[in-house]
């Protein structure tokens, strides 16, 4: 690439709201009082269910949607207030990739990547080498003269990424860019985005409904539910100590640690009168993730621990584990205190008789 380092731009949502007028005079609030700071050069994920408002929020960054209240600032410039030529200038600093790629079927790979440069009025003598660079960066040199219809989904998204980078943007928006791809291709596309973020230093803001995408590349995450941001922070913190129910439900899908059916069916929320077992979720984070804490619980304190399910994962380079265990109710309080003391998080899920 000719431009070794583009300085990323920060994005600030300040009490952003979007209200639609519905037939009959009622208004629907797609977004309400959303405030979020996206640091320059970060990869930030916005996760939410469909209809939560994440797409509307993302599209405000390049002015495809306008807020009805509040401000959206990109690199200090107010996008919501910009119009005409000024808005088009801001848009050239904000690349975007899409779930369904949105490539021109009538243009070759090279032609698609050249489009934003033509739009920006770059002289054709400069377009050619620039396009060649971009094609090389996304690894499609052999396909430069082909049409999108002849390529796979992953290759199409690579064209989309190269096209989004053509004008040297400071921000890259990703609208469910991997949702139409198979898991393996998703990994290669995410790896490419990570490389681009590292090499070019541009800010990446992505929306997704898959927590796995957030885990794999985002340094920060915001959880959006019914038009409001319910939780946001560093990805590791959100994964290891989720506060909001929506976040937990997204996480339960990705961490893959679920109670086996035979336990789940018998689980009650009140402790049985006679002796039973307490079911606890233990989350290992940070330095303790690899410590053999459960073994110590049994050896040092003589508490029998029954492991029901578990997994150890990595977020960035930091490991974190999730175990579902059951212990006799009489000793469970003591055991939880011991684990908490050693920096583990515990959560009582219920009881089995």
């Amino acid at each position: 690439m000719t431009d070794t380092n583009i300085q990323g731009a920060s994005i600030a949502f300040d009490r952003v709201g979007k209200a639609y007028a519905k037939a009959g005079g009622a208004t629907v609030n797609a977004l309400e009082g959303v405030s979020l700071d996206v640091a320059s050069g970060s990869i930030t994920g916005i996760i939410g269910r469909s209809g939560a408002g994440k797409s509307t929020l993302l599209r405000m960054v390049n002015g495809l949607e306008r807020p009805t209240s509040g401000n959206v600032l990109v690199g200090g410039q107010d996008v919501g207030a910009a119009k005409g030529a000024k808005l088009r200038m801001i848009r050239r600093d904000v690349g975007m990739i899409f779930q369904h790629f949105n490539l021109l079927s009538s243009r070759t790979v090279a032609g698609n990547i050249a489009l934003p440069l033509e739009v920006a009025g770059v002289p054709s003598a400069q377009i050619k080498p620039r396009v060649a660079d971009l094609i090389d960066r996304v690894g499609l040199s052999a396909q430069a003269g082909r049409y999108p219809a002849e390529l796979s989904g992953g290759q199409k998204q690579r064209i989309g990424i190269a096209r989004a980078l053509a004008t040297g943007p400071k921000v890259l928006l990703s609208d469910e860019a991997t949702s139409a791809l198979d898991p393996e291709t998703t990994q290669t596309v995410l790896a490419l985005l990570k490389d681009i973020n590292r090499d070019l230093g541009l800010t990446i803001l992505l929306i997704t409904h898959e927590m796995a995408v957030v885990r794999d590349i985002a340094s920060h995450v915001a959880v959006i539910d019914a038009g409001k941001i319910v939780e946001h922070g560093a990805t590791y913190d959100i994964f290891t100590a989720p506060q909001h129910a929506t976040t937990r439900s997204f996480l339960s899908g990705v961490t893959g640690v679920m109670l086996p059916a035979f336990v789940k069916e018998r689980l009650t929320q009140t402790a049985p009168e006679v002796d039973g077992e307490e079911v606890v979720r233990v989350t290992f984070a940070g330095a303790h993730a690899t410590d053999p804490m459960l073994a110590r619980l049994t050896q040092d304190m003589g508490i029998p621990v029954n492991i029901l399910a578990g997994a150890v994962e990595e977020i960035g380079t930091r490991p974190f584990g999730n175990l579902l265990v059951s212990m006799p109710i009489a000793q469970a309080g003591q055991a939880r205190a011991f684990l908490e003391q050693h920096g583990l998080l515990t959560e009582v899920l219920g009881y089995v008789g």
Partner: protein
Amino acid sequence: MSANLINLLLEATGQTLYMVAISAILGTLFGLPLGLFLATSQRGELLSAPWVNKILGLVVNATRSVPFIILVVAIIPFTRMVAGTSIGTTAAIVPLTIATVPFIARLVENAIREVDSGLIEAARAMGATPVQIIRKVLLPEALPGITLGLTLAIVSLIGYSAMVGAVGGEGLGDLGIRYGYQRFMPDVMAIVVIILIVLVQLVQSIGERIATAVDKRATKSGGQ
């Protein structure tokens, strides 16, 4: 068949081709921009002008509702103004063009509306102006559809051109009526019909060939 008849047939074919070609060119010249505008000027669209869109839409529909043979007669004063005369092959180009413009406009409008709205969004996100979006995205992407639409328009022009004998326009249709029907020469009628069938087939297969060549939306078997 006499040499005289063969000459008549050749001449009539030439006249039909002349009328159809000129009307198709003029029809495209006016119909293409009109269709483009209709496809992009509803509320919230690229060239948003909802009122103009509505009025033009009404005019287009009105013109398309009038049966061609009535249109030919109804606009005789206008034809005389434009062509200097209301009778003859050249004069017939005026009603042919007027009937074709709204037809082509609707066909072009449909082809443009077929273009995936995601492409418009992607172009807007690049900072493209409405004119750039039309030139670099909508027209090239709609080209296969527009080509098929123009093919359809030319085929119906060949049909319309057979009716302009009513105002002294010549051509194959006129020859068929005057010789084949009024002078009871069924062989002339048969030859006229055969020539028309061949013309339509030719136009249709050339149109389809061009449309396939410019269509890159699907991989072709054996291609590349």
